[in-house]
């Protein structure tokens, strides 16, 4: 088997890409320099003003950017159309592997555009360029995580002999029947497929980051809303504790919580037992405050939450052979691997004080509004006012912060992986893979780069999405 080239049959496009790229760089520089000295003319204004050099540079910038994007898109689309891996090249083949993701993305965006008017904030997001680019990048990784099993070309943990540190596109020396015959992005120092590990890593991130952020929000909201609403001693103590945790350097905290010796004492498990109660408390208070005047309905809702949530909670914290092992086997629905639970807990623990402070600040602001006073006059209880009057009105900034915080959590997970804490060393998550790759970075840079770019693009997507959401929610 021959090694794959980067662009396969589409190599004819390479010089075009090169020219477009140089033009893009030149135009960017020109625009920035022109931006200092020349004011822009009135392109499109009623009064016709001659175009200044700054305008010309800007138009050229747009065109060269378009050219670069078009060529890059041609590589990706070309990959889908070409018949064989050799013709597709590495880029085309990767695009081909991502076929389920492209289809899912196309369907999502088509539907979103079709029903824009009825989709609320999401529909409005489709109207902003930054926001929809962000949403596309985030959805790309979500779908990748979802279809990871279809996308990977090899088992992310399998080590194939002769593929150690091989460069991208290297063919397997002895491929078995039905096996994909190349390592698309090369092999790492244990001869595993870099591409498959990157794809499998997205699943590791997606199963922890959003849920951990959600839990952090539950904790932060459950404590922050009453702290801001009541103030007083309760607020002082909680704020002090929150500041205490925030003053800890994150890495020191991770080292203190995640080392095997501390895990032996069961500290993370107890912490999990405390932190995971909050969602149940939150839901119970939320519905009880609304439905306590209708006892039948209330008892049905509460029993569903308490029984359902309780079983989930117990199965979550109960670990066979761990420090918390007290419920009968049949009740333990699922077992979260110990490592993931610890990582999860420490990330929630680090994030919740910040959420607490944000929520508290917003509540302090909102509680002086007239509709809160109106709810009081109506005779609503304090919890109803907090959770059904104040909280829904705080959703704008909270949604924006939620997006940013998933990104931050992703960075934290990567940090944990980078220091080899928490997840098992075999794990394909991006942080651990970067950590593996960095040891031989100056000789073999290729194993560390794909996970690094993956992590960067996901966080960038989340930040752009948050930016778009902020812009759209400010328009209201």
């Amino acid at each position, binding site marked *: 088997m021959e090694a794959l080239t980067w662009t396969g049959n589409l190599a004819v496009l390479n010089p075009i890409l090169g020219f477009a790229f140089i033009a893009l760089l030149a135009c*960017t520089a020109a*625009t*920035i320099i022109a*931006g200092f000295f020349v004011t*822009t003319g009135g392109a499109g204004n009623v009064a016709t003003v001659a175009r200044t050099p700054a305008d010309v540079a*800007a138009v050229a910038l747009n065109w060269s950017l378009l050219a670069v994007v078009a060529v890059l898109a041609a590589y990706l689309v070309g990959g889908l159309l070409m018949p064989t891996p050799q013709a597709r090249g590495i880029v085309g083949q990767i695009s081909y592997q991502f076929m389920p993701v492209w289809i899912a993305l196309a369907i999502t965006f088509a539907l979103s555009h079709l029903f824009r008017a009825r989709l609320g904030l999401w529909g409005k997001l489709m109207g902003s360029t930054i926001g929809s680019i962000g949403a596309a990048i985030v959805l790309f990784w979500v779908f990748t995580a979802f279809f990871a099993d279809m996308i990977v070309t090899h088992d992310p943990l399998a080590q194939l002999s002769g593929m150690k540190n091989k460069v991208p596109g290297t063919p397997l020396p002895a491929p078995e029947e039905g096996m994909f015959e190349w390592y698309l992005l090369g092999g790492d120092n244990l001869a595993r497929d870099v591409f498959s590990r990157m794809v499998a890593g997205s699943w590791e991130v997606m199963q922890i980051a959003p849920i951990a952020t959600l839990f952090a929000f539950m904790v932060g909201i459950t404590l922050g809303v009453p702290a801001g609403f009541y103030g007083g001693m309760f607020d002082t103590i909680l704020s*002090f504790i929150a*500041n*205490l945790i925030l*003053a*800890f*350097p*994150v*890495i*020191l905290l991770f*080292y*203190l*919580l995640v*080392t095997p*010796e*501390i895990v*032996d*004492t069961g*500290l993370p498990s107890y912490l999990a037992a405390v932190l995971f109660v909050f969602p149940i408390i939150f839901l119970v208070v939320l519905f009880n405050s609304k439905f306590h005047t209708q006892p039948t309905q209330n008892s049905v809702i509460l029993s569903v939450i308490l029984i359902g949530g309780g079983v989930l909670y117990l199965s979550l914290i109960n670990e066979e052979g761990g420090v918390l092992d007290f419920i009968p086997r049949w009740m333990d629905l699922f077992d979260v691997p110990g490592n993931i639970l610890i990582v999860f807990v420490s990330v929630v623990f680090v994030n919740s004080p910040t959420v607490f402070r944000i929520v508290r600040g917003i509540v302090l602001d909102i509680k002086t509004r007239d509709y809160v006073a109106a709810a009081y006059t109506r005779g609503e209880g304090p919890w109803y006012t907090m959770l059904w009057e104040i909280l829904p009105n705080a959703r704008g900034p909270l949604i924006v912060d939620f997006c940013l915080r998933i*990104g931050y959590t992703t*960075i934290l997970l*990567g*940090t944990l992986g*980078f*220091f080899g804490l928490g997840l098992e060393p075999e794990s394909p998550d991006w*942080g651990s893979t*970067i*950590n593996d*790759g*960095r040891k031989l*970075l*100056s*000789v*073999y*840079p290729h194993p*560390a*780069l794909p996970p*690094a*770019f993956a*992590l*960067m693009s996901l*966080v*960038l997507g*989340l*930040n*752009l999405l948050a*930016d778009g959401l902020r812009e759209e929610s400010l328009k209201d």
Partner: protein
Amino acid sequence: MAIFILRRLGMMILTALCLTFIVFWLTNLYPNLEKLAKSEGNFRMSEEQVQSWLDKNGHGDPLLVKYGRWLGVAPGWVYEDEDGTVRGRCIAPGAAPEDSATYCGILQGYWGFSTVFKENVGTIIAERLSLTGKLMFWVMVLMVPSALLLGVLAGMREGSRLDRSLSTFSIASTATPEYVSGVIFIAVFAASASPLNQWLKENGLIEGRTLFKGTATSAMENATLENFLLPVLTIALYGMGYIARMTRASMAEVMTSQYIRTARLKGQSFGNIVVKHALRNALIAPFTVIMLQFPWLLNGVVIVETLFNYKGFGWTLVQAAGNNDIELLLGCSVVAVVVVLVTQLISDVGYVFLNPRIRVT
């Protein structure tokens, strides 16, 4: 004002005591002590031997007593061996017990003894901190002016093309954590296999094999552009985006204010307005942000020093935490916590000084 600062100082000391106590508690949990006993004594110790080793070395006492000793408010432990030699926390090996102090802790300036580096913790930390100080100094020199410049340029004409491209750049830089940008920098500029370096080499533009060095170990004695730029750039880039965005927001807000309009109406040039009128007010908010960036920079320092093998404070922290070096880890956390708290204090007090609209009662 004085009362405000005093109250903040009191709060700060309370926080520092709480935090150090938490770290002390976590590092002195039994499994950690057991590991310490086994690594200091021998690895095949039985349960009882571990216990007796701990008792002999002052680890067997209640937690609060040990914390008091470490702090220097409780007398150090003293133990008489079977052969009659007296050892103790405050007794240096070979020194007579009578000449030694009764109290020795942080307050007396004794930080403990590192089991990994076999040296006084105080000495190690002072030496490492000066190295990290050098790194931070250059990070600040690079980061603060460029972040402010980016923010001011983007914020002076909100919504312009310059604003949009600079804002995108700042978003991208906040989305790139140090371990990602560091890895990319090394792969591009410091890997012999990278196309850039091969091209430069072929054309004889560089003498060595790479443009920059992938390790900063040599920068500890002699920092040059070649071995120090990449680590400095890596830390600066991550913090830069955030400061730039804050500066931009503050600048954009100032530019819409009444007095700027007045300045425009009386015919001032745009450059004059930005430099003479807007800048001073626009830089109040970023000051707080820059100060509050220190805790984040601390994170960056740990990552970058590990990645570039620069043996400063962050590297020491990782070594201490990874090798169960309890006293060194405690020393590191004291420094980290104090840095965070002091910068918070400076940022609060400085904000009041800079912004005449804020009054403290």
